[in-house]
């Protein structure tokens, strides 16, 4: 149940970011100055926290999606679906523990340039 709710909420959030992300990338075609100005909006602390949330949503949707594939495609998947949901949460926590410090240091120190 919770995996279904989270899969739906993260999917909707990622979809709306995707719309914006195609449009911001399209400004490459206008000029380097315009693109760099638009991308500047992603480099603020508030957006940095939003990006952390976005990556968290993507990683969850990806891992839980793989779990859904296993449940649907294997004979043993349904029997172990709950166990696999806990594995999804643990792997999610490990990947985010690796990603978050690196990302947040970049966001709050202006990048390691």
């Amino acid at each position, binding site marked *: 149940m919770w995996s279904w709710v989270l899969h739906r909420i993260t999917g909707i959030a990622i979809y709306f970011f995707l719309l914006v992300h195609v449009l911001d990338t399209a400004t490459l*075609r206008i000029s*380097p100055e315009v*693109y760099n100005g638009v991308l500047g909006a*992603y480099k603020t602390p508030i957006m940095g926290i939003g990006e952390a949330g976005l990556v968290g949503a993507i990683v969850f949707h990806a891992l839980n999606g793989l779990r859904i594939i296993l449940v649907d495609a294997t004979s043993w998947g349904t029997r172990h679906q709950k166990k696999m949901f806990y594995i999804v949460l643990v792997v999610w926590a490990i990947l985010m523990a690796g990603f978050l410090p690196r990302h947040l240091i970049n966001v709050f120190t202006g990048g390691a*340039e």
Partner: protein
Amino acid sequence: MSRLKLERLGWIFMRVSGFILVALIFTHLIVNVLQDGGVHSIDFAFVAGKLADPMWQWFDVTLLWLALIHGTNGMRVVIEDYVYRPVLKRVLLGGLGISTALLIVLGTLVIFTLDPCPAGSPADLLPSFCSAS
């Protein structure tokens, strides 16, 4: 094709595209957001430098199409689950289809027609290979 067959095809597409998207998006995030400097290093020079390579053009265009179609089919299911009023449902599904078609065309054109060294732009904003030769 019958409605049922179409739904089954959509169901298979979500699994196949989802599996491929995991690899594509994790690569996309590692190359762009986990590079030195992370999101702060993303600018015109970085992206245009990548898109000058046909390998990244085909990588990004595959990601664009699969992600948009996967996301659109997901949103279609969400709309069909929650919107019961026939007119509103038709408006939302129509808007969804039109916006996806436009974004696929726009994104594909940007990927394949981007000039990494536009004339008249300051060299320090461009990929380093623009000033070579």
